[in-house]
């Protein structure tokens, strides 16, 4: 039930007294570069020290015995040094110990050459990464659109809608939760649940022909589900696509079933149809109207099902999907026409089709605009929203029959929530032209944020209060709302999702407008502020008791999850003490079956007086030779070097090698960085193939409590037919080392391979770590795996030119 918070400023920034003094005068963040580079050396020792270690392994002795005379000339004993390091670690790295003199001496001697990493490149990459993380901290646009969707009930049916939202430790579980709209909305039954292989950034939904289509976006995967209109119907996954560059937008067409639009950070816009696949509409890494560095792109549908809008930070354009290169027009430009401020940028565009077929909402960090695509570039409504953080979420509730439309704007890190109402009586042209413009109805209203409810909650113990406060102040991750009419009583329900996976709900109850205070004259004018407005419930007598009950339950679950020891918060450490696993100690338990077979064959041949021409039995292939630890492919560098030395051109060899290896490492590093970036957000996830539909056994009935809270830890995953047998862990990405053969570890076989005695131990030590790991499940062939996940769909590559990768093919 724990929530892994996103990085905080103190994780990235440099903190020391000196620095603070320096910074007091000027503003601006100092990134803690040295610490991060240190992390790299600790986390990736193989990369940093691997090759020189291999070169030097003859000269470093790790055994306990004393060195003998001839060896002592060229070998140093490292054991004492290792012990020193251990001791230092036991003191938690306290540097002010004389003990460390030997270490200091060693590092002084070796620090210039011991690592073999293209430091310049690594530093570039690191700096870029840090800068990106920092800018993400300042403004994280990956959440744009929000990860909460409300699927309203069909007209005339029971008032049961559905909330679609992510949850779980890494927000990688997708929940479809039935919610009953009564006095206090509550969850019904347990949610349908899907485990995905990435953090869910956005959930978008639209209803077409009585069915809901739900699009889900994570960084490198987008998926679509279909939810039939009937209550209680099971949501069905339809299709998944994978992108090479993180996707920044996914919207669902309100016009045609199974159509979506996808944008990636490389500036590509796709129209994605379940039936016909992806159609690239635009590819332009540059922004549209002026240069802006942000790779964020957005796209949405318009009144014409074949025309899509696409946006970047500088404005919006509309494209015709039938001829995207030729047919397009500008809808909104950050600039003079819209009266924009300096530095103003588009944050979230939204099609307002349910209110008016040709209108559009565009929010920036300062203002909100309503645009009409029939009169592009000139906003029909503009209002400065005064929000402290840019609004990343918006939700529209269309008003029927001339009533005002309601728009909710939500910000992420400040949890701000703003309700505004507008009327769209723009252009009643043919009827002679009623001239009332599109205008705000009443003053905008700020709604309660999640943290705001803390003061209304019963007092807690101080430390609990602190934890509760932390939990409640998690940034908002999504927003949804619905209007409810229960006879004369009208109300608005607003759901808010926090990054911790909790869903909160507030209800605004409609009160009839009070007549405006009589103006000084007799004219019966209505002030703009007197339109019907929603007001927050001060205390609704019935709802309060139930709400308190729900809150208490949530709190209990929350404190239970706190009490649990945090799992996997430390990186798995490798024990150096345990040199032999129980398997090694078992020793060779008699000849293997192959040996037996061979012996028998030999005996038989001798009896017959014949000869053996071929040792390999025909039916049996010999077990594949375990890969040597040296780089596979190409002759090993040591023998190369020796050969070169014998030939006399050792210098040249060394030059070639260094330049070669630097180039190679740079390439490898780039490749790795690319892979890691792709894997971001999938940190603690097991790339599971079982996206099976599960129902939790426990009774979980609270919607405003993340389901993750009720069942701390991994929910039981019931596997579907054909999925890997229950109990076996899901397929993991394989560790880079070859699976150790048991026979490999026996000292006999090690000797056979010519590995010197004192190195055998190290090797065994190394291999034992992998032997202890979980047994590798049989790898599923890709095609089979994809069938397991989405029987009816194929995963599509966004670009066909990409060869196969090491990552599991199936995402979600």
């Amino acid at each position, binding site marked *: 039930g724990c929530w892994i918070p996103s990085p905080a400023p103190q994780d990235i920034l440099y903190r020391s007294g000196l620095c603070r003094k320096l910074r007091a005068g000027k503003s601006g963040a100092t990134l803690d570069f040295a610490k991060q580079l240190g992390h790299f050396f600790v986390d990736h020792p193989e990369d940093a020290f691997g090759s020189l270690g291999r070169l030097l392994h003859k000269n470093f002795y790790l055994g306990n015995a004393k060195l003998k005379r001839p060896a002592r000339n060229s070998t140093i004993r490292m054991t004492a040094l290792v012990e020193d390091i251990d001791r230092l670690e036991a003191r938690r790295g306290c540097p002010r110990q004389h003990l460390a003199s030997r270490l200091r001496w060693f590092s002084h001697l070796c620090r210039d050459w011991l690592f073999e990493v293209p430091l310049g490149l690594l530093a570039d990459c690191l700096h870029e990464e840090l800068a990106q993380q920092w800018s993400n901290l300042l403004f994280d646009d990956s959440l744009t659109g929000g990860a909460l969707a409300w699927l309203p009930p069909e007209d005339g049916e029971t008032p049961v809608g559905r909330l679609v939202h992510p949850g779980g430790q890494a927000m990688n579980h997708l929940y479809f939760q039935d919610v009953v709209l009564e006095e206090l909305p509550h969850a019904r039954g347990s949610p349908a649940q899907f485990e995905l292989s990435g953090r869910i950034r956005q959930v978008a939904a639209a209803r077409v*022909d*009585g069915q809901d289509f739900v699009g889900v976006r994570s960084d490198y995967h987008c998926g679509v589900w279909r939810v039939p209109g009937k209550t209680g119907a099971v949501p069905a996954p339809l299709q998944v696509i994978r992108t090479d560059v993180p996707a920044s937008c996914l919207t669902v067409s*309100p*016009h*045609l*079933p199974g159509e979506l639009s996808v944008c990636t950070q490389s500036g590509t816009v796709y129209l994605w149809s379940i039936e*016909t696949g992806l159609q690239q509409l635009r590819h332009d890494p540059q922004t549209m109207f002026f240069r802006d560095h942000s790779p964020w792109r957005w796209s949405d549908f318009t*009144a*014409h*099902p*074949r025309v899509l809008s696409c946006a970047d930070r500088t404005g919006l354009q509309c494209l015709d999907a*039938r001829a995207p290169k030729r047919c397009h027009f500008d809808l909104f430009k950050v600039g003079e*026409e819209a009266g924009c*401020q*300096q530095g103003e940028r588009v944050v979230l565009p939204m099609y307002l*089709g349910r209110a008016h*077929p*040709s209108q559009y909402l565009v929010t920036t960090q300062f203002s909100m605009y309503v645009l009409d695509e*029939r*009169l*592009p*570039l*000139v906003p029909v409504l503009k209002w400065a929203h*005064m929000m*402290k953080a840019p609004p990343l979420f918006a939700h529209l509730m269309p008003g029927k029959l001339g009533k005002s439309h309601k728009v909710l704007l939500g910000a992420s890190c400040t949890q701000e929530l*703003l309700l505004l109402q507008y009327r769209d009586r723009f*252009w009643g*042209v*043919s009827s002679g*032209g009623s*001239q009332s413009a599109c205008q705000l109805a009443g*003053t*905008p*209203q*700020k709604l309660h944020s999640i943290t705001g409810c803390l003061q209304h909650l019963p007092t807690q113990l101080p430390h609990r209060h602190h934890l509760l406060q932390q939990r409640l102040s998690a940034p908002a991750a999504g927003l949804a709302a619905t209007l409810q009419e229960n006879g004369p009583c009208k109300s608005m329900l607003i759901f808010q999702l926090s990054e911790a996976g909790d869903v909160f709900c507030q209800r605004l109850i409609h009160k009839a407008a009070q007549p405006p*205070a009589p*103006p*000084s*004259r007799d*004219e019966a*004018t209505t*002030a*703009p*502020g007197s339109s019907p407005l929603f007001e927050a419930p001060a205390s609704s007598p019935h709802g309060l008791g139930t709400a308190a009950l729900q809150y208490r339950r949530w709190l209990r679950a929350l404190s239970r999850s706190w009490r649990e020891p945090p799992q996997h918060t430390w990186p798995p450490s490798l024990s150096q003490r345990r040199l032999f696993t129980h398997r090694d100690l078992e020793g060779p338990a008699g000849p293997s079956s192959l040996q037996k077979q061979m012996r028998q064959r030999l005996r038989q041949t001798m009896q017959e007086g014949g000869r053996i021409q071929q040792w390999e039995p025909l039916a049996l292939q010999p077990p594949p030779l375990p890969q040597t630890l040296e780089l596979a492919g190409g002759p090993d560098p040591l023998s190369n070097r020796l050969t070169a030395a014998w030939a006399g051109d050792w210098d040249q060899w060394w030059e070639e090698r260094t330049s070669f290896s630097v180039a190679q490492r740079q390439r490898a590093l780039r490749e790795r960085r690319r892979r890691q970036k792709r894997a971001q957000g999938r940190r603690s996830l097991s790339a599971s193939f079982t996206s099976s539909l599960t129902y939790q056994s426990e009774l979980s009935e609270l919607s405003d409590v993340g389901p993750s809270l009720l069942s701390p830890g991994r929910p039981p995953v019931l596997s579907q037919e054909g999925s890997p047998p229950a109990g076996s862990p899901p397929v993991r990405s394989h560790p880079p080392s070859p699976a150790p053969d048991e026979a490999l570890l026996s000292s006999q076989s090690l000797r056979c391979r010519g590995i010197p005695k004192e190195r055998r131990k190290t090797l065994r030590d190394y291999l034992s770590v992998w032997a202890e790991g979980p047994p590798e499940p049989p790898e599923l062939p890709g095609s089979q795996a994809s069938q397991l996940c989405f029987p009816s769909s194929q995963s599509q590559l966004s670009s066909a030119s990409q060869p196969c990768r090491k990552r599991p093919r199936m995402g979600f």
Partner: protein
Amino acid sequence: SSNEHKLNFKKSKEACLSYIQDALLQKQWKRAAEFLTCYVESLEKDYSREHIGPSEMIWRIGTEILWHHSQSKMKEFNCFMEQMKTLGVKRYLKVCLEHVFHLLCNGQIDEAYQNLSLAESWRFGEQTAIQDKEIKLIQAYRGLLDYCSWSKQKKILLEHGEDGFADLAVEQEMHGYFRKAAVNLKEIIKIPGVWDVFVKCYVDLLEFYGEHNEARQVLNEYAYNSKFPANPNAHVYLYQFLKRQGESKKSLISALKILHDIVPSHELMIDFNTMLQKSKKRKKRHLGLEVIFAALDYAGWKENAKAWSCLARQVKQIVISEKHLDWIKQEWDSRKDWWTDFHFSHYLAKRNWQENKSLSCEKALVAGILLGKDCKYFKYISHQGCKARLKRFRMLKKFVTRHNPVYLRISG
């Protein structure tokens, strides 16, 4: 130190502003007003170079608070506005304009007019030239108020008919208003922009006095000058003017053709289609089919029975005459991959049948011709229609079945 003091001052200023905003957004007008009186101190050291300075902030927030505060009176409001005008000469005219809007909202038209006249005569060195745009707006709004007076007089004149001598005075007064209004309105619509209200009023004035050429020139300029934003209303006004003038079909069609190019989903497209369908020229009828198909592409037209009947009528005509089936084929080719789901799904058939029988009948005819008699939409509607024993639907079924080969030719 002074630096620290400045920082603290800035900080408390920002905090104060955020409290005010908070109160405003929660409709706590009284609280906001109290904080605003504190915020006034920020004027003392106004070093800020922000987009909106404190004095402008006070003007904007103060107006908002006074507008909503339950105890505020118009007198106080006017007083506040006068203070604001002197506080910032840089936006003197903006404040004036805002003040006038508030007076108008309260029905104080005479005061508003007075204020506009005063603002117009304001002179303040360079500032007058800088606020050139605002002065144009102020003049235009004064022209608009003159127009209102003019149309009141016109009403009186028309009610009283042709009797009495007093009418001469009224007529003279009215003419005075006309001259004042026309001068100002004419000025504003020369500047590129969206001036729908002003243009309409000006054209109304001109038409009343029979200056049709001038009116036509104004409307043409408004519609076709490329410096102006592409405003569909401009073309609508021109079309309506031409219609009032009883112009030829040809010029009406050419006006609507441009509207069609800018906004294919405009409501006038139905009129346009009817006009084109009646035409004797083949080319125009072809254009008519294009227009109605293009209009029905838009989500807002999905359930427009009029538009569907237009399309059904034209399709029927073409099918019966068996000429120009290629027109239909041409339009259908670019749409057949998505219109089936967009217009002719089973779900829509059910809903259309329940909600609007005549719409479903028109749509079923089109579906039957375009997709054949086996398509879901047609099948469902004709089945329901026959079950309900409606003659119209029996005819529909007969027609589609008879002309089923057409479908093969269109889809082939």
